[in-house]
């Protein structure tokens, strides 16, 4: 069988779409993180705009609602001087039966330059990247349970900011990993950047043993999973898990796998606590920890804008 070229990279190995962290060379990831640093300083100036995407139209295609993610992409695009159009697809033409590709073709006819796509099905952004016009760039803002690459990158930026050397770290990811696109992106990024120990922590229904194929150590006991960790990433628990017979209740989950101050005490004294948001207080994380000294949840949001600016300016500057 022919080997298929990574659709995110052009012939020269430059990034033209951001669809997944998987398959990205380490140099590309590092470069995006370095560029994000530049934009972080831009975001601290009085004039927070740079003209890199001036005259370009960025279309936010959110097939799954998410005001917070969409807002950060909008801010990032506007700081790059792009024109931003938000499309709430969930309530519009697709509901009337227009196919995904017809929607894309219509939008391309309106001279879109970049699509930021969030979709409920794994793989949808690949389909879009395959079928949109050659000069159009696609950023995956989350597809099903497959990937959320900008979140993965901003999580790496956060870790680099507070911890510097990836190759000495123990990172614990706690929660509903099997359904989490954030977890998958984090795991790919951490392995690419050389983190030696990545632990996936949670009950068997949410953290099955075959996850170890991704290069993580599966732990079904939070105590074992958190011990001496440098970074703890908490994932959001969704209500569907209870109705889908994977967990009995949020209460029991919190007792066993929720992050409280005493559980956090098992990690390293200078450990940082991260969460992609929005947080469910009292379900996966205790308020005292979410608001405490170790929490870097708010810096993650700030870094998120700079990282998205870095991603969008990087891909917009590379030709297909």
């Amino acid at each position, binding site marked *: 069988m022919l080997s298929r070229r990574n659709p995110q990279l052009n012939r020269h190995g430059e990034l033209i779409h951001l669809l997944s962290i998987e398959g990205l060379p380490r140099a590309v990831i590092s470069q995006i993180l370095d560029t994000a640093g*530049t934009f972080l300083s831009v975001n601290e100036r009085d004039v927070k705009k740079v003209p890199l995407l001036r005259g370009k139209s960025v279309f936010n295609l959110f097939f799954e609602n998410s005001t917070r993610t969409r807002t950060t992409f909008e801010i990032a695009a506007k700081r790059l001087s792009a024109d931003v159009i938000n499309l709430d697809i969930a309530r519009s033409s697709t509901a009337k039966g227009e196919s995904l590709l017809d929607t894309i073709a219509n939008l391309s006819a309106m001279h879109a330059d970049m699509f930021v796509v969030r979709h409920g099905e794994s793989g949808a952004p690949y389909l879009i990247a395959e079928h949109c016009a050659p000069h159009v760039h696609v950023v995956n803002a989350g597809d099903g349970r497959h990937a959320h690459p900008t979140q993965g990158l901003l999580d790496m930026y956060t870790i680099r900011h507070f911890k510097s050397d990836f190759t000495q770290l123990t990172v614990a990811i706690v929660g509903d990993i099997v359904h989490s696109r954030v977890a998958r992106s984090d795991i790919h990024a951490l392995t690419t950047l050389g983190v030696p120990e990545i632990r996936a922590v949670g009950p068997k229904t949410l953290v099955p043993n075959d996850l170890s194929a991704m290069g993580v150590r599966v732990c079904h006991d939070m105590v074992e999973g958190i011990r001496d960790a440098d970074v703890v990433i908490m994932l959001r628990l969704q209500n569907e898990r209870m109705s889908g017979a994977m967990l009995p209740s949020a209460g029991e989950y919190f007792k066993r796998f929720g992050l409280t101050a005493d559980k956090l005490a098992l990690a390293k004294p200078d450990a940082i606590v991260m969460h992609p948001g929005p947080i469910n207080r009292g379900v996966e994380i205790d308020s005292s920890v979410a608001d405490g000294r170790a929490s870097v949840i708010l810096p993650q949001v700030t870094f998120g804008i700079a990282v998205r600016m870095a991603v969008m300016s990087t891909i917009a500057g590379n030709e297909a």
Partner: protein
Amino acid sequence: MTTDLTLDAEALYAALRDGVRRLLADQHDAVLVGIWSGGAWLAERLQADLGLAGEAGVITSTLHRDDFAERGLAADRGSTKLPFAVDGQRIVLIDDVLNTGRTIRAVLNELYDFGRPASVTLAVLVDRGGRELPIEPAFAAARVTLAPGQRLALARDGQRLRFELRDGP
């Protein structure tokens, strides 16, 4: 590498230093800002050699370049650090080689993201002509003519400066 033209970077630096000293004599409170990377090296040395207080600023043109669509974001680009408020400030920009003037245009735009300077003057080591925009230096240590395809860049060995002349980009 052609050797038709011999440029002694250190000798030209001495001339630049004298030229910038004269410019500063007319603008007592002006600050030096070096354009990354060659201009920044020059500004750092000038700051010390002219006995100026504090640090010279560094500015990069990366975010405002007009060739982003063709070339994308450059990989190594430095970052802007201005240890002073731009509003109402007199600024002397320092660069190594002045050519089309587009870098200066981009640097001015970057400067304006920080505030409104009282004035901006330009001092360069070499003006190689070939202007594509209406930009002129207040002082140039040397004026040379090169073929369009040739590239002139400043290099640094430790503290010693030298020029590199190449055919092609």
